[in-house]
C-alpha cells in the first residue's frame, strides 16, 4: 500500500462513529482464499460481470435481491445512489466506468475473449456477511453456471 492510498477502513470507521454508531463494522476477512485456475484459453472463455449496482426500477431499490439482467440491450442506467461511492468527486452516469459490458463487447469483437455471458448479475450490498455467503453468493454462482460463464469480473461500488 502506497502512502497515497486511502485507508477506507479507518475513514469509514471514523465516519460511522461520528454518526453515533458505537459498534465498528467488521469487514470480511479470510485467512484462506480459494483459487480457481482457468481451464480454457482466454479467447475461448465466456465472461460475465457481477455488480453491486441494481436495476433502475423502484422495485429493485426497495427490495434488493440478486437479479440477473440481460446484457443486450446494454442498460442505459443502473441504480447506485444507495452505495458508498465518492459522490463528491465523481459520478456513475457513465456505465462503462463501473459495469464493463462495453469493454467486454469490444474484447469479444477483437477475439480477446470468447464471448460475453447473456446476463450480468446484480448483488445487493449487505451488512450481513452471513447473508452474502450463504444466500447471495450461491445464487450468483448458480446463475454463472446456468449461463456457462468461465470468468466473472466482480466490480463492487
Amino acid at each position, binding site marked *: 500500500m502506497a502512502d*497515497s*492510498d*486511502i*485507508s*477506507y*477502513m479507518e475513514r*469509514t470507521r*471514523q465516519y460511522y462513529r*461520528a*454518526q*453515533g*454508531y458505537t459498534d465498528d463494522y467488521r*469487514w470480511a*476477512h479470510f*485467512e*484462506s*482464499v*480459494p483459487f*480457481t485456475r*482457468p481451464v480454457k*484459453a482466454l479467447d475461448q*472463455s465466456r*465472461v460475465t460481470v457481477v455488480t453491486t449496482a441494481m436495476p433502475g426500477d423502484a422495485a429493485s431499490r*426497495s*427490495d*434488493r435481491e440478486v437479479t440477473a439482467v440481460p446484457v443486450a440491450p446494454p442498460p442505459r442506467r443502473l441504480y447506485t445512489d*444507495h452505495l*458508498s*461511492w*465518492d*459522490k*463528491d*468527486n*465523481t*459520478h*456513475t*452516469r*457513465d456505465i*462503462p*466506468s*463501473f*459495469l*464493463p459490458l462495453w*469493454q*467486454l463487447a469490444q*474484447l469479444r469483437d477483437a477475439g*480477446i*475473449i470468447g464471448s460475453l455471458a447473456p446476463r450480468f448479475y446484480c448483488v445487493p*450490498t*449487505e*451488512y450481513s456477511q452471513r*447473508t452474502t455467503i450463504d444466500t447471495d453468493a450461491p445464487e450468483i454462482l448458480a446463475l454463472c453456471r446456468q449461463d456457462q460463464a*468461465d*470468468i*466473472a*469480473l*466482480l*466490480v*463492487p*461500488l
Partner: protein
Amino acid sequence: MVTVILGSALDIVEYCGVPRFLYSDFPLGNPCGKPGYRDMQLAIVRQALSMVHGIDQPRATWRAPFTWSENDAWRAAYARVDDSNRDALQRKGEQRRRQQADARAAGQRRAPMID
C-alpha cells in the same frame, strides 16, 4: 469459477483476501475507468482479464497504470469528519437509526445501507 475483482478500495479488498484484484487508484465509483475515457476503460478491463492466466496464487493485486487527476484533493474528501460537519453527521446518524428501526418494523429483510 475464475474471478477477478476490479475495485478502488485497496485496503478493504486486500483485508478480505481475494484471488485476483485489479486496483484502480480512483475515487470510489469508477473502478473500470474514468467516466468518458473509453481507451482507459478498455485498457483496465483488458489488464484485469490478463490476470486470469497471469496469476498462479491468490491474494494477487495489480495496479492499473492510471492516475485520476493531477490534483490529489479528492483523496482527503471521502468520508471526511471535522468540526465543520460533526454535528450534521450526528443528526444524520440519528435519522438513519430511526429509518433502520422503521425498516425492521416493516419487515424489510435487508437493512437499508448507511450513507
